[in-house]
């Protein structure tokens, strides 16, 4: 199986052939995947060097001329370091583009905290109008990248990761999918957190919803799942900062008393290297950790 990043380079290279409006901007990272595309489309594959403020500013400039820019680098260098460029060079200018990140929260744990960006989605939540896709499998990433490229002048963030689920689900770039029906509550699993959630809740009487597009937040699907379960206990498990979408869950259920448990990556630096599964466990996001938190939440009622 290829990685999401490899799929991104392959799919976007094909899209460059098909759509003359598309342009890719890189800041060194990921350039090898676009070597062939850069030869075929030298004007529409741009590598600005290790310059992330320029990466985003160039994206905004391309959009001002009518192109649809696709920007790619590690999440911290795409959203956090040049955050004001994201805010002003896209949002304030009234133009759109596609930001495709790699690295996620801890895809390269041996690289340490400088290469971890668990706050990316939370930061984008301070801005208006960003669509956020969080695929859980390379096939889902391909579908969502195609949606993003074709989304007119929308502002779209696609969060790629090496953490993946064993099998892809059909995704439509908008709605949450009910995967399982239960009666004690609803667990909303985001992208690559699905497999750990399914393992943690295998024998629990819980509904499971799966989301790969988290902004806009599919409140209708959550309300329907809560109605079907007959319980207003909701757990949301996100692969980025814990609680990032708790506000959206609360707003979806504002017409009824409810309880929400928001699980995800902790704010505290672990100051550990090692492997991805060790970081999942370190943040309580492996199946064992999730099961303990979820059963504790349900039993507290």
């Amino acid at each position: 199986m290829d990685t999401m990043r490899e799929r991104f380079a392959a799919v976007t290279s094909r899209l460059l052939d098909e759509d003359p409006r598309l342009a890719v901007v890189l800041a060194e990272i990921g350039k090898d995947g676009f070597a062939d595309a850069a030869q075929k489309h030298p004007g529409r594959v741009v590598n600005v060097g290790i310059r992330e403020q320029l990466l985003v500013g160039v994206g905004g400039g391309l959009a001002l001329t009518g192109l649809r820019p696709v920007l790619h680098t590690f999440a911290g260098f795409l959203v956090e370091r040049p955050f004001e460029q994201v805010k002003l060079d896209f949002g304030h200018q009234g133009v759109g583009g596609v930001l495709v990140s790699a690295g996620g929260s801890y895809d390269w744990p041996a690289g340490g905290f400088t290469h971890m960006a668990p706050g990316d989605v939370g930061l984008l939540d301070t801005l208006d109008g960003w669509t956020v896709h969080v695929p859980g499998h390379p096939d889902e990433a391909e579908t969502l990248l195609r949606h993003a490229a074709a989304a007119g002048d929308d502002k779209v963030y696609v969060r790629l990761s090496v953490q993946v689920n064993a099998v892809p689900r059909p995704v439509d770039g908008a709605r949450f999918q009910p995967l399982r029906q239960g009666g004690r509550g609803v667990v909303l699993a985001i992208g690559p957190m699905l497999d750990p959630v399914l393992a943690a809740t295998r024998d629990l009487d819980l509904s499971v919803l799966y989301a790969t597009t988290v902004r806009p937040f599919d409140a209708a699907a959550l309300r329907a799942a809560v109605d079907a379960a007959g319980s207003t206990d909701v757990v949301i498990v996100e692969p980025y900062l814990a609680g990032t979408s708790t506000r959206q869950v609360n707003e979806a259920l504002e017409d009824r008393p409810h309880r929400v448990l928001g699980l995800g990556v902790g704010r505290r630096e672990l100051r550990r290297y090692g492997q991805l599964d060790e970081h999942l466990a370190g943040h309580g996001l492996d199946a064992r950790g999730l099961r303990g938190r979820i059963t504790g939440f349900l039993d507290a009622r």
Partner: protein
Amino acid sequence: MTPPYTPTTGPTAAVPSGDDDGFAQLTGLMGLMTGDEKHGPAATSTLDALWVLYDRVLRVTPDTVQDPGRDRFLLSKGHGPMAYYAVLAAKGFFPSAWLPGFGAYASPLGHHPDRELVPGAEIGSGSLGHGLPLAVGTVLGLRAQDRTGPAVWVLVGDAELDEGSNHEALAYAGATGLDRLHTLVIDNSSATHGRRGGIAARFEAAGWSVASVDGRDHGALHAAYTAPHPGRPHVVVARVEPKDA
């Protein structure tokens, strides 16, 4: 679709050229915003440079603000935009009746310009250091669409060059020879720490074509704006009175 744009070497017929009678009206237009007929050096630091650019060089008119083949002017230094608004009003991009509302809640004319509100404004600016990267992207976007005719101009202040994002952009533009890119630096000595060796030297070292002129001399400005610079981006450093003089 807009018809194909034919590049020309001079101003379009819609823009009267060398109209220094027009320049004389700008002070009055600025007065509509300030309620004062006199303006200090800071408020007018960009006035001559902007006037000569819009009057004699830029191929853009109120009728072509949506034409993909138009020249682009990006005001990066969004601070003190009264001179910019006065020039846009004088050239008919919006009615001068808008000017007295400057800064009011219902006015499209803020203390920093917003491209969504001001006809003819290519970018919204105010936060320093955004215009030059956006201009680089604009040049690249036009080139990718085989539009090699339009010139892209961006105005920055000397103190604005403190912002590191400018240096990302000017280094890249010089290295890749973006010859449709033009930077106008208004140098009113407002940078606290200055620049050893000068502003022009920074651009020159990055591979730019460089001209330094008196920012009040219309003939010198025009000559600097129109100097050939094949294969290289071009910077015009326009010196005006020190901000605190």
